[in-house]
């Protein structure tokens, strides 16, 4: 009888072990937004970029040090005249439906993306011919040398040049795709996608990762869980409660004021996956008084200081850095040249500049978004500092969606227009003078604010054609100095967004965008 009992116990233990081994590993994450639009070329929404990295792959990618590395590309050649670029795809790449990834697919993908994305459009304006030489080889012929080919193909911010099958990539760029076949490490489970509730991804068993270790968005993308669930929790307090109660494994963007609550829990860790973080910025509308005068715009740089602004929205100095550089601190083009005496709340200097510029007391219509925690306190602090320097400021509160609509209006501030607003963007979106859209000073073609400066445009153009990194750095510094003569916007400090995860999760990758491969759940 005793022997039978022993057999039973052993059988139960073995059974339990087998069940555990066979149990699918699921990673439950709560991201910053709900996934509603799933075409990463059609929208620039960040959540759709995150979705893109789950199911698509890219020709090149940035590693954790923001260096460009080949991803789907095995090797590439550049002709001596720097006009012909040849990209050879890795062997064995396949779409989720099993079909091989071909150069034709990639050419079609690049063309669709290049029709919509600003940096893609810039690259395409230099392209004379983009074609597939054979099934594995893409050939790009340029009209003249362009210094940002690889940076453009590896860009991690919206819109990312994700590769799609040719049949999908031939969709009109103005229409959304309806076929979500990719070649990335996860497969989108369309039948389980409930917008407003959750999105589900399954491990792609056919994915062929690179041999190098994973680093940022580059290297071997190995999916170590069978299933990833994006659970949409709109309320940030509920997100935190759900993590504490083990209902989710990872929070992408817990608000900074709730971080102490998470830090107290012994089952939870904080991790900053994107050390370059985000940069706050003040954008000027140069069409109308008072900011039609560059000197008045420069006076704002003297009136403000980054510490007060960062304290108002982030609070804990552990999560922010004062950065008197146009390009992100920690990035290759970081420089403080010419900017050391700015952002010091030197009100005397600001007043002197206002007097010199003949400021007549025209009120600055400053738009304040009230529904985004990381932005809402920036405007009142800005108003207070500007008023101390002698500005008249009309602070107008509104929700972010109203602000993004109003910022497109060119009307005078009194007639429903605006003078300035505050925003933030991912540092990886502003790594150089071409990528940073606020530096576009091409008048009517520039983004809202409509700066108009031929000198700035010459510098940006020269940067885009330059292929020598040292000369690129010098040109970036020239852009930074030019901004003092013609301010298009002001950088107002950098902060990082920590992620919170339960300690049964490991393998999170640092990098320019959220990567959910390489993560294990115990």
């Amino acid at each position, binding site marked *: 009888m005793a022997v039978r009992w022993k057999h039973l116990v052993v059988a139960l233990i073995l059974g339990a072990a087998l069940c555990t081994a066979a149990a699918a590993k699921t990673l439950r994450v709560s991201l910053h937004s*709900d996934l*509603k*639009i799933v075409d990463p070329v059609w*929208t*620039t*929404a*960040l959540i*759709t970029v995150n979705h893109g990295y789950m199911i698509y792959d890219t020709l090149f990618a940035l590693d954790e040090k923001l260096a460009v590395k080949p991803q789907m590309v095995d090797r590439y050649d550049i002709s001596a005249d720097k006009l012909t670029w040849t990209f050879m795809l890795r062997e064995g790449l396949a779409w989720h439906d099993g079909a091989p990834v071909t150069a034709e697919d990639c050419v079609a993908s690049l063309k669709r993306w290049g029709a*919509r994305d*600003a940096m893609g459009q810039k690259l395409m304006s230099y392209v004379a011919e983009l074609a597939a030489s054979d099934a594995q080889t893409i050939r790009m012929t340029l009209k003249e040398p362009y210094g940002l080919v690889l940076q453009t193909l590896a860009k991690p*911010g*919206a*819109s990312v040049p994700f590769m799609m099958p040719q049949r999908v990539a031939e969709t009109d760029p*103005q*229409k*959304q795709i309806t076929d979500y076949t990719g070649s990335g490490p996860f497969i989108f489970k369309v039948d389980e996608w*409930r*917008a*407003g*509730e959750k999105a589900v991804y399954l491990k792609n068993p056919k994915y062929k990762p690179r041999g190098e270790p994973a680093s940022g968005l580059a290297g071997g993308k190995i999916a170590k869980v069978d299933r990833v669930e994006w*659970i*949409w*929790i*709109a*309320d940030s*307090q*509920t997100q935190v*409660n*759900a993590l*504490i*109660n083990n*209902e989710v494994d990872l929070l992408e963007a817990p608000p900074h004021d709730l971080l102490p609550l998470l830090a107290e829990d012994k089952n939870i860790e904080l991790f900053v996956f994107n050390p370059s973080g985000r940069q706050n910025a003040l954008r000027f509308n140069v069409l109308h008084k008072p900011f039609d005068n560059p000197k008045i715009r420069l006076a704002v740089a003297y009136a403000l200081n980054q510490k007060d602004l960062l304290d108002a929205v982030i609070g804990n100095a552990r999560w922010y850095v004062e950065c008197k550089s146009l390009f992100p601190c920690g990035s290759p083009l970081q420089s403080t040249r010419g900017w050391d005496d700015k952002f010091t709340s030197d009100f005397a200097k600001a007043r002197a500049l206002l007097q010199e510029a003949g400021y007549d007391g025209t009120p600055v219509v400053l738009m304040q978004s009230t*529904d985004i925690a990381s932005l809402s306190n920036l405007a009142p602090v800005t108003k207070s500092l500007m008023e101390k320097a002698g500005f008249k400021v009309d602070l107008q509160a*509104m*929700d972010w*969606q*109203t602000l*993004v*609509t*109003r910022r*497109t209006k060119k009307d005078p501030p009194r007639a429903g227009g605006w003078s300035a607003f505050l*925003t933030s*963007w991912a540092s990886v*979106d502003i790594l150089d003078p071409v990528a940073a*859209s606020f530096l576009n000073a091409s008048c009517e073609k520039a*983004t*809202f604010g409509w700066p108009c400066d031929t000198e700035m445009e010459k510098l940006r153009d020269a940067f885009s054609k330059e292929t020598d990194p040292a000369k690129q750095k010098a040109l970036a510094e020239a852009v930074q100095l030019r901004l003092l003569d013609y301010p298009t916007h002001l950088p107002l400090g950098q902060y990082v967004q920590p992620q919170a995860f339960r300690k049964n999760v490991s393998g999170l990758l640092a990098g320019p965008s959220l990567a959910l491969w390489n993560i294990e759940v115990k």
Partner: protein
Amino acid sequence: MLGYILRRLLATLPVMLIVAVFVFLMLRLTPGDPAAVIAGDNANSEQVAAIRNSLGLDQPIFTQFFIWFGNILRGDFGESYFFKKTVAELITSRLEPTLALSLATIVIAVAVAVPLGVLAAYRQGTLIDKIVMGFSVLGFSVPVFVIGYSLIYLFAIKLNWLPVQGYQRIGDGFGGFLQRLILPSVTLSVIYIALIARMTRTSVLDVMGEDYIRTARAKGQVEVKVLFKHALKNAAVPIVTVIGLGVALLIGGVVVTESVFTIPGLGRLTVDAVLARDYPTIQAVILLFSFVYVLINLLVDLAYTLFDPRIRY
């Protein structure tokens, strides 16, 4: 009776027309542009304009209205700008969580509030009456989200009895469905309990001095029977009215409760749609809520005949 119901249903048509015009104009006059939201923060003006054109938002406002209203008359509420589903599909998929939450809330509220109100009336002026009325004042005063967070803290985080958030469809298992419904429905029922208990107390007090109550007692009926058979039945008309009118409160409460507890219902859909300026969805949801409200008023009126035979239609 049938003629009355038909007349009342016909009378909803002009009401719905006014609601439709009002909602449409309100949305178009509210600042914000769905095209800018769809395009994302990094989009340029050309991309936003292209999306606006594809959605028909660049057409004159009257053209937009007549296209939308014409489609509604054909039963087509349009397609959500964001979810890429027809609004009808979207609402259908979000109906179950909201219906479940609303019904559970009403059941809890009536089951708790009516006996409490009767008890408070029966024990008028005693400590019990003061406690019930004190709770009633508190229930009105404390915001729904504060009640929600407090219950989450106690029952989910500290005691670990119930989940913090989420919803399980009834088809995926009744146990899980019930487990995830308890906290939100209790949260939402607090304000409703406060309202109904107060009205029940007042109505029962009004009838307690009537001759038929004295007669029932004189016949030797037990107090429970006197209270629930004679007093409550005669006090029911204002109580039913309050339950019906309270649906408006419920709609507002559903929006907050679904956000706090991450329930993918119509309340959450309304918030998402408003934040994103998803016009077709907002318009359809508000029309639906209005229609439900009108319908409940009709049902309340019909219910009067059950409690008071003198009322005839």
